[in-house]
């Protein structure tokens, strides 16, 4: 012990100024410190849950030798509560999103294909009626939506659309189908063709689907896979052939 401190200690003892407190009483006093303050605050009507949390921070900091003021403790508690609330909210949102995924809405191709045809629905002929071969041969046309590109350049999708249109015209005749991108020739269509061209690795995937305009049901769908170096035109031809067989 420093000599100055020792001298002061001796002076205090000599003149009986000391009032020693037993060690277990010291520990008791510290253990009951926060609880007594809570009792005081409650009796004067100044206790709240948030302030109680701030007090925990205040006394915990003192215990480890950090002298925070009450205002600082309140700020720390507020910041901690904000972080916890944000984390909890994020966790709940993630859980709901993971366990209860939103159902897929109708594909845009169907919607965009159907929307321009709404005004002509009343003039459409059911594909079922046509297939029944009841002697009536209503004039219907196949409407073709431009194919979309999935992970490919637009030129590939345009080329696929053109090749399939060309092949279908060869198989079904010129007046059988119309391109829906050409708004000047919407006419009456009973069936629309939608499709896409995608690229997965070194392969092109050509996908096509026939949709009954009256019911919105899928009539037929098909796909063809061809390597990048392969015969893209023949693949489009095969798709057109399969579509033709199911029209």
């Amino acid at each position: 012990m420093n000599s100055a401190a020792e001298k002061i200690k001796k002076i205090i003892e000599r003149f009986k100024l000391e009032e020693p407190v037993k060690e277990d009483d010291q520990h008791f006093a510290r253990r009951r410190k926060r609880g007594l303050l809570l009792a005081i605050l409650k009796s004067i009507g100044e206790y709240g849950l948030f302030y109680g949390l701030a007090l925990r921070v205040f006394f915990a900091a003192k215990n480890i030798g950090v002298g925070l003021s009450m205002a600082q403790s309140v700020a720390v508690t507020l910041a901690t509560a904000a972080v916890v609330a944000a984390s909890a909210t994020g966790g709940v949102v993630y859980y709901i999103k993971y366990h209860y995924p939103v159902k897929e809405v109708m594909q845009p191709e169907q919607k965009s294909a159907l929307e321009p045809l709404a005004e002509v629905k009343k003039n459409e002929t059911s594909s079922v009626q046509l297939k029944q071969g009841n002697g009536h041969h209503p004039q219907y046309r196949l409407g073709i939506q431009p194919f979309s590109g999935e992970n490919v350049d637009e030129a590939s999708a345009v080329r696929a659309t053109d090749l399939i249109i060309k092949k279908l015209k060869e198989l079904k005749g010129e007046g059988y189908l119309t391109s829906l991108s050409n708004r000047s020739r919407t006419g009456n269509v009973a069936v629309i063709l939608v499709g896409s061209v995608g690229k997965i690795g070194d392969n092109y995937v050509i996908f096509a689907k026939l949709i009954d305009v009256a019911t919105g049901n899928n009539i037929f769908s098909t796909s063809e896979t061809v390597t990048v170096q392969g015969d893209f035109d023949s693949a489009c031809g095969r798709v057109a052939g399969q579509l033709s067989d199911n029209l």
Partner: protein
Amino acid sequence: MHSKRNRLTEIYSDYYPVVFNAVLTKVGNRDDTLDICQEVFIRLYERLDRVENVRRWLFSALKLVVLEHFRKKRKNDQVNIDDVFNDVGLTFVNGFRDARIMIQEALDNISNYADEKDQVLFDLVAINYYTYEEAAKHLGLTRRQVEYKYVQIADRLLRYFKSKGIQHIEDLL
């Protein structure tokens, strides 16, 4: 209202141990001590705006509340404050009494401390025999900080004694 509550909390945090110690040495019972401490700080809150010297006010108030406690306990309004706070200093006579008074004044003189918290630190360590660790936990300091501050206070007190004409502390002893 919130700043008053915060001020009470901070005063309580610093002065609770010295108030607790002072009451416990008189009352001798932990639970009664806690009740008296609670009453003292509630009264402090009610008068906080008017209190200038918190330390002086607290020690005056705790004497009053302790006296009320004994009167209530003994069901005797005639309990005397001198009976409760029997000053051992009265046993000192002549020069010894004068020296004791001078030393007590030195210990009460705030200019011998850096701030009020330093005075509380000295009370806990020198008067109440708290360990440096225990005092540190009450005051939000580290053990080394408490030890350093205590030595600084001791040096200041010795310089004060010298200024009062006591060149050699051994003379006091």
